[in-house]
């Protein structure tokens, strides 16, 4: 269990009513740095306690409300513009992440800020899509030849495209992970089971949506999003979990796509941090896919570091978490035994230096 006021408030928003001024400052600071201030505002309104909070808190919350509303509008409009550009074609285009959540009206979008739009297209249609976007006014953000080559050969997406009228970037993917990554799945399976929405775009099945979010967090080195992603998954377990079919499909699908280790972590942290209601049989069935003890312990420490950031001038935990999760993402590309030793020595040496 983690002793952290932000997590407590996320789990039980009603405690906001009784927070002291110092607690508010800690809570707001951590919420700001985790990108969750808008979420707290939404929760306070949702349970009807907003008017009971200090006037200053209401004022700060209204700023974050404008922020998240603006972000949602920008993503919705970018989706609209992509639709306009692709008009006349019946190519399957899948919305990913924030765009998908907004399109589906998912509960995890409340108070959330997304900065760009991610879409997925079959690999052999990438050039066609790029051509259409460029004709419709989008421009490459990355223009030097070396970077362009890097994106096309090693990455799983085109270099970002930006339309000068709007300055939101669209990332056109042909897979959800870099092709060089060990975890890179057979994405055609995910496209096959995707669901068509009213506006003609597709979104992944529920299991694939959550698995994508999970593998994205535990694969990439994004540190600041971590608590935000964990709660996003908590929301998804809650929302998707109302359908028994979801629980039945989840682990088999993770096995099929090769995401079982990441799913293990997600379930483990959701349960331990947020007390997410996950059926016992799921917890039992995922257990064999967990990590060995040493890796697990370090991983747990690092994630705890992220969730309880020490924001003082010298943040040991903060350093550790920032570097820890980043290093973690490279583990998956290098032999684990070698890295574990290298990591431990370097990690503890730095630990001592900061003391």
């Amino acid at each position, binding site marked *: 269990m983690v002793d952290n006021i932000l997590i407590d408030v996320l789990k039980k928003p009603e405690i906001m009513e009784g927070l002291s*001024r*110092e607690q508010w*400052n800690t809570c*707001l600071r951590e919420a700001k740095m985790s990108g969750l201030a808008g979420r707290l505002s939404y929760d306070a309104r949702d349970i009807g306690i907003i008017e009971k909070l200090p*006037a*200053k808190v209401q004022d700060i919350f*209204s*700023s974050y409300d404008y922020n998240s509303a603006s972000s949602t*509008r920008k993503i919705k409009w970018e989706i609209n513009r992509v639709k306009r550009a692709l008009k006349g074609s019946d190519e399957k285009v899948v919305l990913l992440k924030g765009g998908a959540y907004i399109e589906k009206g998912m509960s995890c979008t409340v108070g959330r800020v997304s900065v760009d739009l991610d879409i997925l297209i079959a690999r052999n249609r990438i050039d066609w899509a790029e051509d259409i976007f460029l004709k419709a006014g989008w421009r490459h953000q990355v223009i030097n030849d070396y970077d362009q080559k890097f994106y096309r050969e090693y990455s799983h997406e085109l270099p970002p495209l930006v339309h000068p009228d709007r300055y939101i970037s669209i990332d056109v993917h042909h897979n959800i992970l870099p092709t060089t990554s060990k975890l890179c799945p057979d994405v055609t399976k995910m496209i096959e089971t995707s669901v068509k929405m009213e506006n003609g775009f597709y979104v992944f099945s529920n299991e694939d949506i959550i698995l994508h979010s999970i593998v994205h967090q535990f694969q990439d080195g994004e540190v600041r999003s971590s608590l935000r992603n964990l709660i996003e998954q908590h929301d998804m377990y809650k929302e998707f979990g109302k359908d028994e079919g979801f629980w039945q499909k989840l682990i088999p699908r993770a096995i099929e796509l090769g995401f079982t280790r990441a799913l293990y972590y997600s379930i483990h942290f959701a349960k331990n941090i947020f007390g997410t209601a996950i059926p016992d049989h799921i917890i039992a069935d995922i257990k064999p896919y967990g990590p060995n003890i040493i890796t697990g312990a370090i991983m747990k420490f690092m994630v705890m570091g992220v969730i309880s950031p020490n924001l003082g*001038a010298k943040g040991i935990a903060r350093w550790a978490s920032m570097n820890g999760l980043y290093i973690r993402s490279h583990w998956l590309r290098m032999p684990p035994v070698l890295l574990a030793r290298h990591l431990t020595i370097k990690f503890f040496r730095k630990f001592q230096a900061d003391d």
Partner: protein
Amino acid sequence: MNLSETNSFIKKENQFMPVASRFHNENKLVKLNDSELDKRLSGDGIAMEVGPFSVNVLIKFKNVREDFLKIYRDFPFYDEPIVLDHSISVFGRNLFRQYLRPQAFVETEMNNDTIPLPAKIGMVSLEMGFNWQVAMGCKQYLMFHAGVVARDGIGLIMPAMSGSGKSTLAAGLSFRGWQLHSDEFGLLDLDAGELIPYPRAVSLKNQSIPVMKEWVSREHDNYEDYFTPAYPGTPKGTICYLRPPDQSIEEMHKRTKPNFVILPIFDPNSEPKIRPITKTMAFFRLVASSANYGDIGERAFSSIAKIIEESFVCEIIYPSLDTAVELVEAFIAEHSDPKKAGQDDG
């Protein structure tokens, strides 16, 4: 001074403070002497009020504390915990950067990536940090990149890019009887349609420094007290900060509806001129000057439409601060209906 004495001191000197703002009558504001402020600034920090915002300030460099106090010593400080809009800390990231080659790192808690500056000019880092926090973190008030001043029911917005002289003009007007709202960030309350004062250190660059020193010296013999040292070598050249007039600090919660929009154009070789502009032009200039217009959306559009509907607008071209002030006063006088000004009393 014990606490009850300081409170009555506050009541007498700062008559607007307990009444005008809904945030402040809950908390105890105090007036502290320099040595007490210095102690708190260097310790855990101390919370101060700047217009509608409460910010905790912590400064680990003595010279920066001195410069800070020169500007802010008469601002309202809190003696008790309060809910903060922001927290800002200025310190050296390690022993080397703190003591041997002092370099001021600013933590704004808002993901800023500014380059640390030598601690000697740490005040610049601090002010840039304040700017960042407001520019990024304030979406609940419509924000204009503008000089804003007010007087007797008149609210004047002067939107402009850097180099237009708007900071100098706003400061100049404020030392001639106008209330300084801000030399850089105009704020508007979306509900009441009122301008919200946000008086901070006025930032003067290069040539404006001697101009303002001369300007302030005409009214105040002790004019040097109003200025920090000049800080050379910043990315924008030499910067110097000017403290707002005492009255503007005291009146920082007095709000006014905007009814004049003047676009200032500084041209040292020009003939002073008041030029008419269309309201459409003024509308778009206000929109273009607003960093959070896009985030606020509909309410921002409606608010700016209302401001322009209810305002007199023009452009002024001026070669000097003296002529600028004359032109502003002339335009205001031409369009001020003494009866209307009374009704608009904000």
